[in-house]
């Protein structure tokens, strides 16, 4: 069934896309691109290094100074004013404008990882232990200084709402890999061990399809009730009844198609059938009974609680196994404007063991080679303190000029740190990586040239990396092919 997903629009846009990439339009290739036939999707630009992505998004902006970017020299500069040469007239938020900027050294220890030789915070022991598989990037930077635009920018390539998210672009560009589940799934944590105080809002635009057809939008799984909204049959309808109803609609729809001639009717039939398959596939997906204790233990004790980041990591692995293209996790609670030392350890606890387990689990199953894992927030945090400033009590404001994140798996060079900041983790001094460069690199690893993955809208050939400033694939973090 080549027409499984084909509304004409999708076809037309995809034709344009294929033309712009210089590809022919063989029926088989088109069918594969449109997905739904179970075949691997075609990669149009170059051979991919990764086929799937797990994006662990740390909403609220984790402090690079306390987690990733070791600055031992700061300890002796406690409460010293930030040198103007470093500050450089940087704009600040409304919260710290006009205040003096005094250095707040991290109170947390760092250690050199025995498997990679890279410095990691003592708050992240599990990640440190798998850091031979991780590329830690310390030189990320962004334009946004507030959460909402920052998150919107990282997730969609633009601070202004209305652009498609990364997962939507991949769904559009590469099509579906499976017949029973969505291409793009979103999982949000329901609680944070670091407490609620530093939690920021989310918006469905962070996983929206923007100007792309709506079928590319992320499907947000729910913690309670149906994992996918409206998945379950309502009371009074069981699977036999549902099948019988769908047989009737299919038969009548087919009759109507014969009379009317509109191919859209056949799409409706196909989508109703996929809905029926999803009703079986999704409960199977979220049922963890088949997971051995050993695997559950790997993810840590929180995995037993619905809505935990740990549970979502395990679910992400199960989705990747079932060929969901893009899984995005949102973990909030990183906005540590005050009492950071009290609340950061809980946050680190939430993500450290589960994300390390995810890497181990994927690797054991042979999935890490072609699954890209990305971990990042929307920006970093300032070296100068905000609020109360003691050695063991401080907060940090938003900092777009430099922050840290990491990548692992499909096509990434493990065991390295990339990029360097100054002694204050304030400015980047070597190998800067813009957020749009991360986007370009992600697409590159999936076999797509970010300048050729385009969609015509508002008179522009729109792309994830925007048209304003040029994005670059970060060659230095790629592994040997």
């Amino acid at each position: 069934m080549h027409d499984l997903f084909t509304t004409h629009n999708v076809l037309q846009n995809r034709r344009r896309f294929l033309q712009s990439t210089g590809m022919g339009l063989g029926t088989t290739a088109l069918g594969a691109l449109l997905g739904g036939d179970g075949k691997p999707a075609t990669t149009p630009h170059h051979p991919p290094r990764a086929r799937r992505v797990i994006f662990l998004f740390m909403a609220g902006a984790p402090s690079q100074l306390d987690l990733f970017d070791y600055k031992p020299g700061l300890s002796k500069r406690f409460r010293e004013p930030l040198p103007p040469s470093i500050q450089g007239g940087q704009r600040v938020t409304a919260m710290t404008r006009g205040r003096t900027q005094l250095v707040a050294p991290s109170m947390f220890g760092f250690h050199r990882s025995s498997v990679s030789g890279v410095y990691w915070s003592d708050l992240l022991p599990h990640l440190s232990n798998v850091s031979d598989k991780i590329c830690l990037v310390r030189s990320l930077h962004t334009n946004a200084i507030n959460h909402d635009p920052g998150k919107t920018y990282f997730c969609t390539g633009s601070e202004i709402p209305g652009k498609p998210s990364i997962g939507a672009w991949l769904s559009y560009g590469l099509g579906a890999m499976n017949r029973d589940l969505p291409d793009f799934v979103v999982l949000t944590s329901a609680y944070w061990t670091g407490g609620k105080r530093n939690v920021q809002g989310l918006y469905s635009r962070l996983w929206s399809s923007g100007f792309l057809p709506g079928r590319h939008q992320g499907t947000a799984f729910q913690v309670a009730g149906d994992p996918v909204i409206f998945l379950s049959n309502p009371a009074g309808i069981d699977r036999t009844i549902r099948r019988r109803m769908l047989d009737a609609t299919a038969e009548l729809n087919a009759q109507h198609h014969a009379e009317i001639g509109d191919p859209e009717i056949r799409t409706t039939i196909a989508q109703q059938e996929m809905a029926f398959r999803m009703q079986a596939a999704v409960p199977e997906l979220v049922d963890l009974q088949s997971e051995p204790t050993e695997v559950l233990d790997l993810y840590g004790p929180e995995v037993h609680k619905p809505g935990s980041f740990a549970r979502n990591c395990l679910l992400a692995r199960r989705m990747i196994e079932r060929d969901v293209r893009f899984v995005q996790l949102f973990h909030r609670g990183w906005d540590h404007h005050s009492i950071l030392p009290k609340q950061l350890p809980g946050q680190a606890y939430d993500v450290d063991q589960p994300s390390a387990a995810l890497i181990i689990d994927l690797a054991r199953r042979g999935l890490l080679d072609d699954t890209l894992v990305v971990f990042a927030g929307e920006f970093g945090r300032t070296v100068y303190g905000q609020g109360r400033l003691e050695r063991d009590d401080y907060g940090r404001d938003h900092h777009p000029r430099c922050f840290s994140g990491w990548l692992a798996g499909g096509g990434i060079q493990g065991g390295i740190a990339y990029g360097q900041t100054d002694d204050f983790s304030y400015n980047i001094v070597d190998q800067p990586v813009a957020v749009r460069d991360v986007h370009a690199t992600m697409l590159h690893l999936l076999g797509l040239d970010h300048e050729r993955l385009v969609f015509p809208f508002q008179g522009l050939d729109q792309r994830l990396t925007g048209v304003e400033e040029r994005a670059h694939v970060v060659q230095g973090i790629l592994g040997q092919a």
Partner: protein
Amino acid sequence: MSRPTRHTAGALVALLIIAPLTSQEGADRASAHWAFTAPVAATPPTTQNTNWPRSAIDRFVQAALEADGLQPNPAADRRTLVRRLSLDLTGLPPSRDEVRAFLADDSEDAYERLVDRLLASPHYGEHMARYWLDLVRFSDTNGIHHDHYREQSPYRDWVIRAFRDNLPYDEFVTDQIAGDVHPKPTKDQLIASGFHRLHLIIDVGTALPEESLARNVIDRTTAFGTAFLGLTVGCAVCHDHKYDPITQRDFFALSAFFNNLDGAPETGRRGTGDFRRGLQPPYVEFPDAGQKAELERLETELDAANAQVKWLTTKAKGAGGAEQQRFDERRQSAQARVKQLRKQRDAIRVAVPAAMVMRERAAMRPAHILRRGDYANPGERVERATPAFLPKLTRGDGPPTRLHLARWLLAPDHPLTARVAVNRFWQQLFGRGLVLTAEDFGTQGSDPSHPRLLDHLALTFIDSGWDVKALMKALVMSATYRQSSHATPAAYAADPDNRRLARGSRFRLDAEVVRDQVLAASGVLVREMFGRSVKPPQPAGLWKAVALPDSLPRIFRADTGDQILRRSIYTFWKRGLPPPQLTILDAPTREFCVARRERTNTPLQALLLLNETEYLRAARHLARAILRNAASSERERAEHLFETVTSQLPNSEELHVLQRTLADLREHYANRSELANEMVRGLELDADETKVELAAWTALASTVFNLDITKTRQ
């Protein structure tokens, strides 16, 4: 009329760097683009087939078809037409009685009288308003950060009334742009100026106020461009527009009309009365007579109580000992009285309808070109002006006002205003605009499929005094509109968007119409109009998963009773997570202006229509009504069901499928009595009702609601 070929963005950037546009080249490009020159009157062409055309519209369409060697389709059958008209003009399906009345009316003007009746329906106003609300990104929350409640319903109600009462489009536009600038603005004109308050707005204390101000002004200006000019002026925020002759200076000169709001650029502080009401100055209040009297009484009492507190305080100060104590005690009780009166007053004020409006500051805020669109990097100062490539702005002695801007927009020789408007109305009725890109009439937008027809409609619209109902009537009276949508698969494949108009358009109903139809056809729709937005049930936990701990509101609490059965235009719209029943069917988030919705067909849509519990409850209501109906045979009941939902009578094959399915369902429910129990839970059955029968008919009704022809306008 040639247009530049599409370049990839990268190539064009390179091109522009090598050869920046001179102003002369810009002007040349402007004059060469069809949409930047005034519409030209054209005599409708003569056609070979003179029988088919009913109006000028049809002659334009027919001539184009003949040039392509095509013929129009015959008219659709009357059942299809009454359904099409009803859905297109009111967003609601015709009742079975309405269908039958139309079929029975064999008078010459039966169709026209049907059209007139639907245009006169209050539901026409609601349906027309819904498209406009997409265009101006209407919502019930501020859309950023906490995504707090924001009270905008008076604006929504005004839009509904404006369409219902057929406010001429020029006044409709003028009042939104400049309602507050009129010498003596009416209540409605003030509410209309709330158009400028619909943008996203960030919470106080997060961003810097000057950044927020810039962002709001850019948002307002962009909305003006999309809604009235059909141009992507927002592309000129950071640099001169890459394709259209809009310079960055043009953008910021235009933005100077919108940068002088006499109000804060960020939401108010929490804890205030305004905050709880979702209001922020400037706003106007409309208490009813009772509220007004009560408020006046309380204010008077408050004044008195306050005066008493003051007097007692002075007395207490001047006294000593026991006397002082006595004064203090009396003061305390007077203060308690003040507190209580305030509470009473606030309780009433919360319920007083109020609308946020536009109002100018006395001293004009200067406008600057923002270099690279950066608020922190203001460049040259600019005065209020309209883009140079469009007609000249007529102004008075002082700085031009928004009223001058509105008059400029509505001048008969303006090349965009009327074309952009009629194209959107056309798009509503035909699924696609004559210009496919309803949001972009610039050089990168699509060319009109029928340019002379578009101009004819634009000029007729202006000549009619911008009469929207007259335009809608002319469109639906045409033979072009009345065509059948049946065609060969080859014809569908050859022209999937129906741009040649050789058949009637067939497209999925918009999200709101899908929901409203389920409620209306089932007989449960509550037709109450206007008022604050309501919350029909949605799956639990959706808001909680995205909200901040102190967002207002944070927890979704569904309404009950009649409120959950009202039309979707009254559904509460949280921008951070809009109602899923609507977004799953391609409703936009209302975070930015949308002139044209996508139409997709997805498994999540199938799940929604199959499993939404309120929809099944509605189907059960319909099943029950059909079973109670005096109609005797099963066949008649099946016909009744099919006709109620689809407006068509089932043919023998369809009847066969329905009856066979019913038999299967009945058998299954008979074997699984607990399933039938679940289906009828909460109902008190009459003596002659059986659970199995009601369950089977409910499932059958739901089946018919899930047909492609049910969710499709054809």
